[in-house]
């Protein structure tokens, strides 16, 4: 399992691996928002938590179709399915690799990009914590979507359409937590719900992804 994780990380770092793609996309989206809505600091700081969440979510979406499609194309997925690792473990490791190469950098960079949106000082911690809690769910749900579309040529667009609605609960509670944190309100309820969504996704979805993958490999 460690071997698979290390291989996926190595592949992401090498040429064409897509590491940094999500990060640059996130940066560009955040830079463009003030151009679009105008340089009113009050308005910007009000919408900043939501914009950061939307940006992170879309950046996460960009690299989803690489999770399984590349392995399917070159036959590795068939070979992995006959290896001693259970498919549930394979999809979990794949989600983890996606989170490390896409989710985690987004979490770390989000507070820095908050500066561009005039994010209130009180919100830096909460945008960081909410993304840290929410992005694992994004990766795991995305892997489920990738498993659903794995056999399709150019399945990326369909993948986005399938996955975006599933991202809605995470987005609602993640952005709500960051917004409440920014205005100094109690963040307990959205934080618990966000953590619950992440925990449930990580615990249950790998089984669904593996089942779907078994059908798609036939």
């Amino acid at each position, binding site marked *: 399992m460690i071997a698979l994780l290390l291989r996926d990380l190595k592949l992401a770092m090498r040429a*064409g691996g897509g590491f940094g793609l999500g990060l640059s996309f996130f940066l560009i989206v955040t830079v463009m928002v003030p151009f679009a809505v105008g340089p009113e600091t009050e308005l910007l700081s009000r919408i900043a938590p939501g914009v950061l969440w939307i940006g992170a979510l879309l950046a996460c979406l960009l690299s989803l179709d690489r999770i399984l499609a590349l392995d399917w194309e070159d036959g*590795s997925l068939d070979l992995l399915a006959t290896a001693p690792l259970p498919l549930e473990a394979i999809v979990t490791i794949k989600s983890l690799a996606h989170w490390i190469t896409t989710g985690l950098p987004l979490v770390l960079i989000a507070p820095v990009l908050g500066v561009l949106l005039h994010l209130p000082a009180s919100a830096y911690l909460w945008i960081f914590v909410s993304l840290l809690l929410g992005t694992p769910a994004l990766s795991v749900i995305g892997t489920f979507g990738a498993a659903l579309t794995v056999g399709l040529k150019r399945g990326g667009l369909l993948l986005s359409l399938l996955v975006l609605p599933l991202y809605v609960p995470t987005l609602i509670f993640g952005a709500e937590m960051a917004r409440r944190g920014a205005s100094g309100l109690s963040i307990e309820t959205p934080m618990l719900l966000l953590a619950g969504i992440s925990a449930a996704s990580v615990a249950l979805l790998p089984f669904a992804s593996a089942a779907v993958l078994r059908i798609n490999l036939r």
Partner: protein
Amino acid sequence: MTLTVSDLSVARGGLPVLEGLSFDLPAGVALILRGPNGIGKTTLLRTIAGLQPPLKGTVSGAEDQIAYAAHADGIKPTLTVVENLIFWANVFDHTGIEEAIESFNLTALRDRPAGALSAGQKRRLGLARMLVTGRPIWILDEPTVSLDTDHVRQFADVVRRHLEGGGSALIATHIDLGLEGTVLNVGPFKAAPPPIDDFDGGFL
């Protein structure tokens, strides 16, 4: 360690392609599958490898014993030859990739990114993967595609050594590998076309 297939029917895309296949593959034996294109050799091998469920019948003795080599080699173009092999060796909890590298003449290509290999070299790397799995039953789907004659001979030697070491091999191929194995022509097992039920029949 004997692979037993009994009364197996396999389907591709919902349509049965082969039916009523039964054979045993004991240790030390190579079974060569023959048959025209599209008869269902690949489907049969995928079913035995456990990648798809059989329509009918059973496959026993395959679980965690087989190493499968498909048409695609499962090679990552940005990893080097050695990195590719080490990865598969680790996945199968096996150590020592040197034997595999030497058996398939990959020594000079060790540190070359796999994306820069020729088709035949890639195939050799894909076949070298079988040696690092440490699994006894090899399931090979047209293993000699894009290999030159010298390397076909070399590949046959590797299979022979594998058989001597107590392994077995199930090989679908169109060429003569020079292996002393049983030949199974799957042609006669072609599944009958599904009966047209009356509702559709009225339209035909």
